[in-house]
């Protein structure tokens, strides 16, 4: 296959795959990276390192796109994001460096394990109990914020347990740089469960931080020459478009049945990737 028909088949295939991944990522709240990396490895048959590099670039784009509305509407806690980004960037740089050393098969196994962990997080019911005042460290850093309300005064919330959150953010950054995902599931869990932030603030702040986390990894890949333009270009475009469509549909979607469907899809993909890695396919 070559020439014009070949290029249209490849571009159409990559764009279709990327739009689907961005769409599923936005609807599930797990981000496009969780779907595009296995999609590229299994369907486009590109090596794991190439899939990770392309995914990191697309995660930067989707994070920027989604953050516009969240920051403008006041859902993102920018001060908290900046403090936690110190931890995620450290982890992401280490992860991206290690990704250049660790064999592709080992990365595929790690990816499969990470997907199973994401499925577990997706099934776990999160509470939305907030604290009204911050602990001394978070008070000193002025990390508390306000939840915007439609026709009422904003609701004040506090932040606690910053050190625990920071440690989990290093792990999230490491996963991001190593596996090409945003690490949103772990970030949201850290902020929601341990730092006691409201769920939507956790999601918005996590999404905002993902851009810097994935950006740190993407810069390492780009500087190393490990980004395949022929793959990353259409993937970045497609995932961004898919995420945009997904975020428009999200308010009208039935979240609970969707979440169960995604858990099933993610588990199947994790098994497939783990099987391929073990069998050396």
């Amino acid at each position, binding site marked *: 296959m070559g020439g014009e028909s070949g290029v249209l088949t490849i571009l159409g295939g990559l764009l279709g795959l990327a739009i689907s991944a961005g769409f599923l990522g936005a609807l599930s709240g797990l981000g496009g990276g969780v779907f595009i990396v296995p999609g590229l490895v299994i369907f486009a048959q590109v090596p794991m390192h190439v899939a990770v590099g392309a995914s990191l670039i697309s995660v930067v784009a989707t994070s920027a796109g989604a953050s516009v509305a969240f920051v403008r509407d006041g859902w993102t806690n920018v001060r908290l994001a900046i403090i936690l980004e110190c931890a995620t960037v450290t982890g992401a*740089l280490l992860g991206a460096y290690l990704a250049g050393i660790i064999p592709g098969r080992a990365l595929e196994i790690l990816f499969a394990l990470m997907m199973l962990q994401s499925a577990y997080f997706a099934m776990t019911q999160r509470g939305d109990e907030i604290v009204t005042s911050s602990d001394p460290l978070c008070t000193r850093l002025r990390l508390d914020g306000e939840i915007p309300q439609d026709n009422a005064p904003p609701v004040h919330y506090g932040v606690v347990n910053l050190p625990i959150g920071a440690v989990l953010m290093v792990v999230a950054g490491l996963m991001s740089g190593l596996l090409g995902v945003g690490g949103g599931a772990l970030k949201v869990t850290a902020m929601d469960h341990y730092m006691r932030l409201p769920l939507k603030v956790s999601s918005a702040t996590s999404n905002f931080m993902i851009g810097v986390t994935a950006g740190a990894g993407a810069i390492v890949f780009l500087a190393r020459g490990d*980004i395949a333009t022929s793959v*990353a270009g259409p993937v970045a475009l497609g995932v961004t478009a898919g995420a945009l469509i997904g975020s428009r549909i999200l308010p009208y979607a039935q979240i609970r049945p969707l979440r169960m469907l995604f858990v099933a899809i993610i588990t199947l993909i994790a098994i497939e990737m783990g099987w391929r890695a073990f069998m050396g396919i």
Partner: protein
Amino acid sequence: MQSLRTADEENRILRHWTPLILRSILITAMAFLVVGLTLAATRSPGYYVGRFRLVQSGKTIHAATNWAGLTTGAAHGDPRAVMTLGLVVLTLVPIARVAFTFVLFVKERDAVFVMATAYVLAGLIAGILLGRIG
């Protein structure tokens, strides 16, 4: 060190300028990618297919990363250079956003946040060096 702005003023600046920075760079990067892909599909389809097959086979994927070659190539309508430029612009999104907050906190004389943003900015720039030696 005491902050010079109120929390409300800081919020207003962040909520106005951050989305503007994110959106402008994202649109620029996407425009480069659309032009690059269109050029690849129309001008040199055989070359694109060849590159993709090479990537699939696990052989070299090293893209042009020197600025002179990249800008010259893009100016001459080289699809790969235009797309790579789009990807480079995309990686500027986090750098620009963090640089903006760094300047904001320097103006506010908020020492802790100046150090935090400087650390993140240094980390992003260190990524370039890490990639070069990795």
